[in-house]
């Protein structure tokens, strides 16, 4: 078996070029810069066409709900005159139970149009359900590759539920133990089957999310007279932030885009022992930070999800905050939804407290819940794996060791992640990948400025300080 990984990785370029349905080389401009907008529009579909594709797939046009009880709860402890109106886009109403249906729909449409016999996606999350469901409707074969178990063959109940739902939709589910070699096995499967790589990070996928930002801007305008002042987006790989922000801009909205993740700092994402000591399989800083600071770590040559380009703020909340809010949503608003999707809701409750009453905050997704995904299942599993669960001050929680559930909603205080640190880290990664001794051109500096939502002078300053370091 020695050399198996090396052998397949050596053929990565050739396999992915066929499997992605698009040649990424045409967008490259330099070892640092590439033409992002050309890549995003290369598929040739307008937003209107994408919406039509999604409608025929049973995707989109989900309810936008005002959360009057949660709003009043926040106002009951906010300073006088404060407490923004809270809204949620109930994306759990999509075919397979999450906004990921939007992401899957365009890839599946392209696979069908281009004559692929099937699709493959590497995901342990809702995206697998979405791809499986859309593939079933399109009559395509589907393989979902999941990192599912630790070395004891113990699986996070949320991932086990995801295995189940993918198989319910007729997908072949390949379950693996912990490790990044999942990617090389996905390459072997792409090579063996000739299927389309339905990457989470393709331009097809991210374009599919633009309809979400566009829809919620239109719906908020109809409901309140204007697009929302703030949208809060659960952030992991960056697609949700990117697609939503692009859709908002297409609708002409100047909404603040606030990304939010569960703080899982200190846990190693490739660690067999840590794997089952986290209660969130996505929407956490373990993906959110590395993908923001180096998006091109993804399974495509250039990632269409580029969160730093679009986020105005990045908030983190604790696991306990999210479980508390998940329970509150069910009891106060009649919305029993999955915890990962409620990450943004926990951040929004903290944000709304500090905003004036005429501000409007939209949480742009929910996800389905049920056996395994449910917050009770998650907390029971945490206890079984030696994580302490208790009520108290959530700021005392230590990811992997304890989950502290707030006793009062006032205790939910999201923390601002310093964006300048993320930008600096991104620039360092871009320079490192360009190769030793490469001197960025003015075109590179301009690209990095746009890609980090900053300006050329700030990038020049970072480059200079990295040289000194």
């Amino acid at each position, binding site marked *: *078996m020695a050399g*198996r990984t090396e052998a397949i990785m050596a053929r990565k370029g050739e396999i992915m070029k066929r499997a992605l349905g698009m040649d990424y080389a045409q967008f490259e401009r330099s070892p640092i810069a590439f033409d992002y907008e050309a890549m995003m529009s290369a598929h040739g579909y307008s937003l209107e066409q994408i919406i039509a594709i999604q409608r025929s797939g049973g995707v989109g046009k989900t309810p936008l709900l005002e959360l009057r009880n949660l709003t009043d709860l926040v106002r*009951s402890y906010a300073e006088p005159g404060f407490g923004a109106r809270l809204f949620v886009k109930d994306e759990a109403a999509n075919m397979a139970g999450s906004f990921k249906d939007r992401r899957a729909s365009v890839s599946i449409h392209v696979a069908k149009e281009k004559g692929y016999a099937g699709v493959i996606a590497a995901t342990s999350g809702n995206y697998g359900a979405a791809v499986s469901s859309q593939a079933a409707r399109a009559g395509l074969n589907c393989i979902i590759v999941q990192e599912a178990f630790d070395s004891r063959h113990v699986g996070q109940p949320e991932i086990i539920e995801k295995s189940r739902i993918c198989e319910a939709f007729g997908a*072949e589910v*390949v379950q693996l*133990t912990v490790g990044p070699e999942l990617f090389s096995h996905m390459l072997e499967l792409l090579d063996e089957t000739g299927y389309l790589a339905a990457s989470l990070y393709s331009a097809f996928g991210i374009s599919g999310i633009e309809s979400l930002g566009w829809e919620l801007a239109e719906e908020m305008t109809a409901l309140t007279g204007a697009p929302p002042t703030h949208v809060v987006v659960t952030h992991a790989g960056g697609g949700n932030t990117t697609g939503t922000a692009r859709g908002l801009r297409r609708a002409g909205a100047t909404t603040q885009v606030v990304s939010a993740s569960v703080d899982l700092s200190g846990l190693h994402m490739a660690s067999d022992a840590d794997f089952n000591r986290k209660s969130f399989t996505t929407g956490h800083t373990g993906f959110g930070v590395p993908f923001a600071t180096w998006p091109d770590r993804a399974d495509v040559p250039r990632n269409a999800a580029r969160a730093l380009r679009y986020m105005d703020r990045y908030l983190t909340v604790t696991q306990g905050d999210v479980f508390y809010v998940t*329970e509150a949503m069910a*009891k106060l608003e009649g919305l029993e939804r999955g915890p990962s999707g409620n990450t943004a809701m926990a951040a929004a409750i903290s944000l709304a407290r500090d905003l004036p009453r005429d501000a409007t905050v939209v949480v742009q997704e929910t996800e389905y819940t049920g056996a395994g995904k449910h917050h009770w299942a998650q907390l029971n599993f945490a206890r079984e794996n030696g994580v302490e669960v208790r009520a108290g001050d959530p700021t005392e929680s230590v990811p992997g060791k304890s989950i502290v559930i707030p006793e009062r909603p006032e205790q939910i205080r999201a923390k601002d992640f310093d964006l300048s640190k993320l930008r600096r880290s991104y620039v360092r990664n871009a320079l490192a990948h360009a190769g030793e001794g490469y001197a960025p051109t003015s075109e590179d500096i301009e690209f990095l400025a746009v890609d980090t939502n900053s300006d050329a002078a700030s990038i020049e300053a970072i480059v200079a300080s990295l040289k000194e370091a």
Partner: protein
Amino acid sequence: MTETTRCAPGDWVEVESILLEPADRSANLPDDTAAQPLRMWVKGFARTAAGVGDELTVETMTGREVTGVLVEVNPGYFHTFGKPAPELTAVGRDLRIRVAAYRKAGG
């Protein structure tokens, strides 16, 4: 409940195999992960009769052939909700009281 320990051709089963031995795994893995083989589980229709622990080839939902060790015949799912978390049981009651009090006070 008695576990079925043998499958007939055409039965829905699960096989396990080792994709990479520890020595063949990626560099830069944390020590705990590097010490373990990369294992894989796949479900499909049994090609032949076999007993649990025997090598068996299955045909998956996409028509691929995968060979591994038979681990389960007619594998199911047993994930659940479990007991309510005591830290959360009063959240609904307490928050409803707070919202009602806020509204009563003219908020």
